[in-house]
């Protein structure tokens, strides 16, 4: 270990060291490297130079060497802030933010007032949402340099994020005092004052916020925001007169903005009343007033679509009929394919559905025979294209209500009438998709696509339909239309084309290509990491530009971003893939059912054998890790060798880019070979629990994973959470919860089901389970006979097929036999088989029961119910 003296360079070398620093800052890495090596020749143990060499190597993408040098430098001089800073920077570049923060903090121990390090630290802290640390760091920076606007603002934001509004306002005000009062505000100042106002609003002082807004109104740049917020605050404070005026003014600016309309309605007191169930109805008086108001608006603004559409919401009966008739006709004439989606929002009201249906049916027959909407119209007053769009609507309507065969009949008629109407084919494909005829759906959509090869929507849809039909190659061929000629499919990763990755991942999963599936699905997760990483660009930029409202909004948005449906869907799919890998693959074919059967091989083993197996797996894992490391090293060396050989030629940089891209894509094959798939699944479940705790599916996934791992307390937790969410949102408890309650009850009785770790439950755990399950509503009591308990569940919920399916599974698990299990599904099938997805699952489950006669009976019954669904076709 070097002495302190050895860490001090002679004058000459000090100069060289400064050059090293300068070269790094100016990105002259090669030159910097040479200078560093010059110092190291004489002082091979100089810590800071070693560290700098590491940092420069890191910039040259020689990661392994970089870490080695940084470490070496750090050990040579543990008391140098440079060494710690470099160490932190390298951690940061590898996205190990927590480690980077620690390193920076160590660096600050030795150089308390280093602004560069403080700044870097604050960025990481805000990135990691360490709000306390961020506020403290920004305070230090402000104390060091209080003449910079950005430092004041950043400290204020730090306090805001901690919820200390008072302090935040105090800091902003102190800073504002230093400003020139007479200066005309530029955009940045305007944003700062608006941000200040937002903080007042968040602190809950509406009166003060309103007063402040009135004060800054004349100078603020974002007029619409000021007006809207003012009106909103006035409304909340009960000054509806002023609010009404405000909203009317806003509507004159933009009469399509729904929030202005709702604001005005509230200001006028024209809102619906809600009953206990949450159904809203408009009183007669309100309807009259609203009708007058919006009829006025329609005269005033000829093209305002809100004024045309909104009356359909509050009117009913004959009045509704008149208005919807008036509303639909021009859209049919014009050919608006989205009309059905537009009106679907009204389909919650059965009366309105009936009226619309009657009208459209009348149109349909009148147009077909006489070229007019109604008998009261002149003959041949409409052209044939109107008929096609009415027919299209009627088909959508029938499809939505489940009259698939009628919808298809209509579509055939439409295609015979105008074979070039692309939308008819698209709807036909969608209808076929809904009855699970994915092959034909794809064929029809592809036909539509070939009618207009330049249509992006059709190209995208067609890719998805191809994947659903299991045609990966076709999908790849079509999706390539979106790429440049030089690009490969990997570029889709670069483009973060998540819809494709999700669909492709699920397709591979269905085909049991688990490695490919994981590659695609984990890519989705990677994109979310990248999106979060992208925040870094904004931390300094937004503070500098003072776009604080947007910045705080962005920070809050990023915190919730992993609750996005793409992330959730991909995460659930990943969990399912790992569960399928864990379970015996041959049993995994049965989709959802897979979870229930469990791995026979594991449960048949004795405890001793299992321990041995575990040991073997551990050893295999260690070996795999070693191999992996060696592989990584070899790759790195190879890459460097290649680089050294070919220099910086353009072609290589292109190839290197492609290579780098390839390496950043998750390696599904490696993941699929994970010796501990349940552990990997559990990690995903944790992410889901963190990001979508209110989604009931999160807890259902947790049930599947934790029960296999034998983590009974976590199983109980998931059961409780699922039940609570179901209660809060007023839905029936998912049947999977019932199944897992039965399983857990068996475990508590020491009757450990198949697929669970066969060890005896830890007595402490058993004790906790016993006390805790008493509070779980509907949990089987210790005295209950589980078969009977399950039967009573079946009696209660026998009207939905998915509940019956889980009751059937319980029967199977409880040893009631295949025939009894089948009966649970079969008993009242006629009344409830309309749920196609659940029916397919039930059918797949019965397939595993090995009772061919009954399976055939079930199949025939289901085929009668869903004649177009290929799943229920008789096997050839």
């Amino acid at each position, binding site marked *: 270990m070097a002495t302190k003296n050895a860490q001090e360079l002679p004058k000459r070398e000090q100069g060289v060291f400064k050059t090293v620093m300068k070269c790094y800052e100016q990105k002259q890495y090669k030159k910097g490297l040479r200078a560093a090596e010059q110092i190291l020749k004489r002082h091979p143990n100089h810590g800071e130079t070693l560290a700098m060499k590491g940092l420069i190597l890191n910039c040259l993408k020689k990661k392994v060497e970089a870490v080695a040098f940084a470490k070496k430098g750090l050990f040579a001089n543990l008391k140098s802030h440079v060494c710690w800073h470099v160490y932190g920077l390298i951690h940061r570049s590898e996205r190990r933010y927590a480690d980077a923060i620690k390193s920076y903090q160590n660096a600050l121990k030795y150089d308390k007032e280093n602004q560069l390090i403080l700044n870097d630290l604050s960025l990481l802290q805000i990135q990691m949402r360490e709000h306390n640390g961020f506020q403290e760091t920004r305070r230090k920076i402000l104390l060091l340099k209080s003449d910079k606007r950005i430092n004041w603002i950043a400290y204020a934001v730090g306090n805001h994020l901690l919820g200390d509004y008072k302090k935040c306002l105090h800091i902003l005000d102190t800073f504002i005092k230093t400003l020139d009062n007479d200066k005309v505000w530029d955009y940045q100042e305007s944003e700062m004052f608006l941000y200040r106002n937002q903080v007042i609003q968040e602190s809950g002082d509406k009166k003060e916020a309103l007063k402040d807004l009135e004060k800054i109104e004349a100078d603020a740049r974002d007029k619409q925001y000021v007006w809207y917020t003012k009106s909103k605050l006035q409304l909340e404070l009960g000054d509806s007169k002023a609010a009404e005026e405000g909203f009317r003014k806003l509507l004159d600016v933009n009469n399509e903005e729904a929030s202005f309309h709702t604001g005005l309605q509230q200001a006028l007191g024209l809102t619906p009343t809600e009953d206990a169930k949450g159904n809203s109805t408009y009183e007669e008086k309100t309807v009259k007033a609203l009708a007058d108001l919006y009829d006025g608006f329609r005269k005033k603004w000829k093209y305002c679509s809100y004024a045309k559409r909104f009356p359909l919401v509050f009117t009913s009966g004959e009045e509704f009929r008149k208005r919807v008739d008036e509303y639909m006709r021009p859209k049919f*004439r014009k*050919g608006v394919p989205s009309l059905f989606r537009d009106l679907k929002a009204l389909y919650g009201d059965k009366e309105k559905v009936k009226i619309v249906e009657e009208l459209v049916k009348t149109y349909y027959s009148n147009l077909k025979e006489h070229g007019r909407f109604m008998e009261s119209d002149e003959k041949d007053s409409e*052209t044939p294209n109107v008929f096609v769009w009415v027919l299209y609507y009627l088909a959508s309507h029938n499809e939505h209500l489940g009259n698939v065969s009628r919808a298809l009949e209509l579509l055939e008629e439409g295609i015979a*009438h105008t074979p*070039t109407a692309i939308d008819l084919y698209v709807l036909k494909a969608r209808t076929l998709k809904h009855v699970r005829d994915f092959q034909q759906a794809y064929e029809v959509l592809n036909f539509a696509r070939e*009618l*207009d*090869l330049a249509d*992006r929507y059709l190209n995208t849809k067609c890719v998805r339909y191809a994947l659903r039909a299991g045609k990966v190659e076709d999908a790849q061929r079509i999706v390539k239309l979106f790429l440049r000629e030089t690009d490969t499919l990997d570029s889709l990763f670069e483009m973060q084309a998540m819809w494709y990755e999700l669909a492709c991942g699920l397709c591979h999963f269905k085909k049991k290509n688990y490695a490919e599936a994981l590659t695609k699905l984990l890519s989705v997760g990677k994109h979310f990491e990248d999106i979060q990483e992208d925040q870094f660009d904004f931390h300094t930029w937004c503070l500098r530009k003072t776009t604080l409202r947007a910045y705080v909004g962005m920070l809050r948005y990023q915190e919730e971003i992993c609750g996005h449906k793409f992330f959730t869907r991909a995460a659930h799919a990943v969990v399912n893939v790992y569960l399928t890998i864990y379970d015996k693959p041959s049993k995994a074919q049965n989709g959802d059912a897979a979870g229930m059967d469990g791995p026979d091989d594991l449960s048949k083993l004795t405890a001793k054998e299992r321990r041995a197996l575990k040991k073997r797996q551990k050893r295999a894992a260690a070996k795999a890790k070693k191999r992996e490391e060696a592989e990584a090293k070899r790759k790195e060396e190879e890459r460097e060798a290649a680089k050294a050989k070919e220099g910086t030629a353009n072609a290589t940089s292109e190839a290197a880019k492609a290579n780098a891209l390839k390496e950043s894509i998750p390696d599904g094959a490696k993941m699929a070979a994970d010796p501990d798939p349940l552990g990997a699944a559990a990690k995903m479940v944790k992410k889901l629990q963190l990001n979508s705790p209110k989604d009931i599916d999160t807890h259902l996934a947790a049930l599947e994973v934790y029960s296999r791992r034998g983590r009974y307390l976590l199983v109980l937790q998931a059961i409780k959470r699922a039940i609570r969410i179901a209660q809060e949102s007023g839905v029936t408890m998912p049947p999977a919860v019932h199944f897992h309650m039965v399983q857990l009850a068996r475990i508590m009785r020491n009757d450990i089901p198949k697929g669970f770790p066969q060890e005896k439950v830890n007595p402490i755990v058993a004790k906790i389970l016993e006390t805790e399950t008493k509070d779980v509503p509907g949990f089987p009591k210790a005295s209950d006979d589980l078969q009977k308990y399950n039967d009573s569940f079946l009696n209660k919920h026998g009207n939905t097929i998915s509940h019956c399916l889980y009751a059937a599974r319980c029967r199977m698990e409880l040893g009631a036999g295949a025939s009894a299990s089948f009966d649970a599904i079969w008993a009242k099938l006629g009344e409830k088989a309309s749920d196609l997805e659940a029916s397919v699952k039930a059918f797949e489950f019965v397939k595993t029961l090995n009772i061919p006669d009954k399976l055939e009976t079930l199949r025939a019954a289901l085929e009668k119910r869903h004649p177009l669904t290929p799943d229920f076709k008789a096997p050839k």
Partner: protein
Amino acid sequence: FFFQIRLRAVVRERPVPSTPPNLSPPPRALDWTSVDSSHQPPATEMEDPSEDPVERKRAGIKTYYTDVTPNNVGQLRCLNLNVFPVTYNDGFYKDVTNEQNKDVTKMVYVSDMLVGAICCRFEAGKDKLNRVYIMTFGVLKAYRHYGIGTGMIKHLISVVSKLQDIQDVYLHVQISNEKAIKFYQRYGFEIIAKKENYYRKIDPPHCYVLSRKPGPLESE
């Protein structure tokens, strides 16, 4: 921040309103004579001329003309399959997307749906003059009697009358298709020849050759 826009600009081409096309194309050097037209029998399916054009269906129909491109040629194929008794081969569809014939080959849309099309090509005639040959001319059955065919033929005549060095516009019509013959005669076409056994697969196999000299319509 670089939000790379990587999607290739493949926007669905909206039909453009029918404005007179950009005229005065130079007379072209043509090599169409090598095409044996008897293998691709031309056809015309349109208005019922028994009805006077004045007594057309009451409602006016709004049409848009657009060019045939390799991207939307599938629609033309779909239209022709439904309108004509004969099928055209891939060579035909390659010809119609040819840049040379852009001005005399148009598709007609009504509220985003293709309802009719006129496909012509230039051929070399006498004395270095060019002939315009109407290969196909058709409107979907449900959209007939709305003046769409009339619009198409008038469009063609006005385009051709502004070109130079044109000998005539001509086409073949099956001798039994009286409606079509009357239709063309209304716009100045005359029967100049009869060809025996022109068609192979349809009966009667004979056809007339109808021709019209360039020049604007008399009535307008």
